[in-house]
């Protein structure tokens, strides 16, 4: 049987509370995990970077909680308990500590994997290909939005531009990056460029496809590529697909932030 802090005090010794010590380690572990992911840049493979300040604050709070729990443990102060946890007994508490520890080990030791075409789980990317809306002007130059002289750089800027220009953006030069994917019903010189958009975290990721045409040689699936070309429109099955007529397709390394974000 463990000695209570009062009994320890009576004999002039300090009895470190094992639960409090374990909680201190695990709470600090969460803080350390967040610090490690933010410092290494790996957090962007889990979360929308706009949430980094909030996540950093959580990391600091958990480190502080861990520190305070450790100080209390060393002082021999007994851990607080919810009534439910007391009723649970050691087996349930051990399971909790074990599952938290396993989670931390995975987070600290296993590098995150960026979603690729395997995350589509067999779904055809064709249903996620970007299209011009039905209300968009159908002819080039029928919009008041002026086409920029420089190429539009990457998909986020392209989407923002096309939301204003609609089909008036046809002919605009662009440079976009993404993963090479495959889809049924495309020509031999075409492939869908795949990106995932996340709002909060990878769990809410949704795929976005952009048709790339006039490709000299199709790259390997899941290869990151940079496509340069001009915006065009392709009628397929009644839909007006947004397409990039490629002038160059070159392999690149995975970008530091591989996901798109709506904000």
């Amino acid at each position, binding site marked *: 049987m463990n000695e209570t802090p009062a009994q320890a005090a009576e004999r002039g010794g300090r009895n470190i509370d094992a639960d409090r010590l374990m909680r201190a380690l695990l709470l600090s572990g969460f803080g350390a995990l967040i610090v490690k992911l933010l410092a290494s840049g790996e957090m962007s493979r889990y979360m929308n970077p706009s949430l980094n300040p909030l996540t950093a604050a959580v990391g600091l709070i*958990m480190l502080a909680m861990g520190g305070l729990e450790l100080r209390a443990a060393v002082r021999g102060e007994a851990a607080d308990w919810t009534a439910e946890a007391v009723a649970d007994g050691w087996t349930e508490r051990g399971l909790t500590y074990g599952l938290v520890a396993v989670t931390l080990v995975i987070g600290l030791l296993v590098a995150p994997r960026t979603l690729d075409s395997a995350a589509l789980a067999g779904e055809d990317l064709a249903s996620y290909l970007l299209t011009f809306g039905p209300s968009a002007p159908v002819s080039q130059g029928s919009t008041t939005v002026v086409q920029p002289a420089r190429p539009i750089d990457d998909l986020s800027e392209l989407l923002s531009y096309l939301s204003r220009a609609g089909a008036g953006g046809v002919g605009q030069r662009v440079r976009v990056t993404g993963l090479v994917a495959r889809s049924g019903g495309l020509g031999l010189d075409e492939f869908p460029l795949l990106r995932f958009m996340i709002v909060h975290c990878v769990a809410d990721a949704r795929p976005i496809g952009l048709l790339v045409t006039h490709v000299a040689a199709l790259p390997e699936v899941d290869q990151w590529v940079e496509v340069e070309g001009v915006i065009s429109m392709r009628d397929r099955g009644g839909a007006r697909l947004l397409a990039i007529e490629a002038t160059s397709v070159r392999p690149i390394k995975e970008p530091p932030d591989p996901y798109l974000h709506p904000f």
Partner: protein
Amino acid sequence: MSALLARFHDLSTLFISIVLQSLPFILIGVFAAAAAELYLPARLLDRWPPRRSTLSVLLASLAGLAIPVCDCGVIPFARRLLAKGLPPSAAITLILAAPVVNPIVAVSTALAFQGNWWLVALRLGMTLSVAVLIGLLASRLSPWLEPKAAEVLAGPPPVTWPAEVSPPAPEGRSLVGRASAEFFEVIFFILLGALVTAAVQTFVPRALLTAVGHDRALSVAALMPLATILSICSEADAFIARALAGSFSPGSLLAFMVIGQIIDLRNGPLLLRTLGRRYVALIVAVSYLLVFLEAQAVNKFAPRL
């Protein structure tokens, strides 16, 4: 790397991302629960809210407007309010309504749907209707529900400290120590829910459910379990629903955003732990049925919402 290994790698990435995303809201919940435990006088809520169940359920359904807690944080908070005397029916209503009926979710939904306030109002209204109905049913049916739930909903029993656990001295209890205790009370179930959600997202093709998007009745029936499986946070789910808007009816999108915050895999284990099987069965049955019918009504009377 083999395809199977890659899928397990995806599983671990999804799992950690769900945990990281949940942590801020869990912390808010456990600190709110700790503050309620330490600073609210015992049985304070015996006197307030009013004893009449209908009024207390209605007040609880709107509590999220003043205390915007998400689905990760509301359960530990509600547990402590129960211990302070909040009626069980009001606590259930709070758990079901607060994650959606709050200003943050209203604004995020409006942002996702380009200021479509009719849709925002319908989302909040549908959630309120489910939460209030289940709260009222719970107040009428509680004597017949399982003993475990009755015990839990009556508040924690007096604590008998086992020999190996040293009770903390009352003067030594701190907000952080209590929040830490609350954290380790709920984290097992949050992690379990996150693991199941990540596994389902990794291994169950969404195409199985989204293939029926063009049929009005079937699309509602398809998106409801999808929302339960995906377990997306209430501040983010509207953006996912918006992405589905091209293929799905307004009713099915509303059903997705309402049921996903009431019944989700991530919080399922904690809800079971808190309320017991029969209360959870009541919540699942009533919420699925009511949301399905309301979504069909939206499709019939407001197909172009």
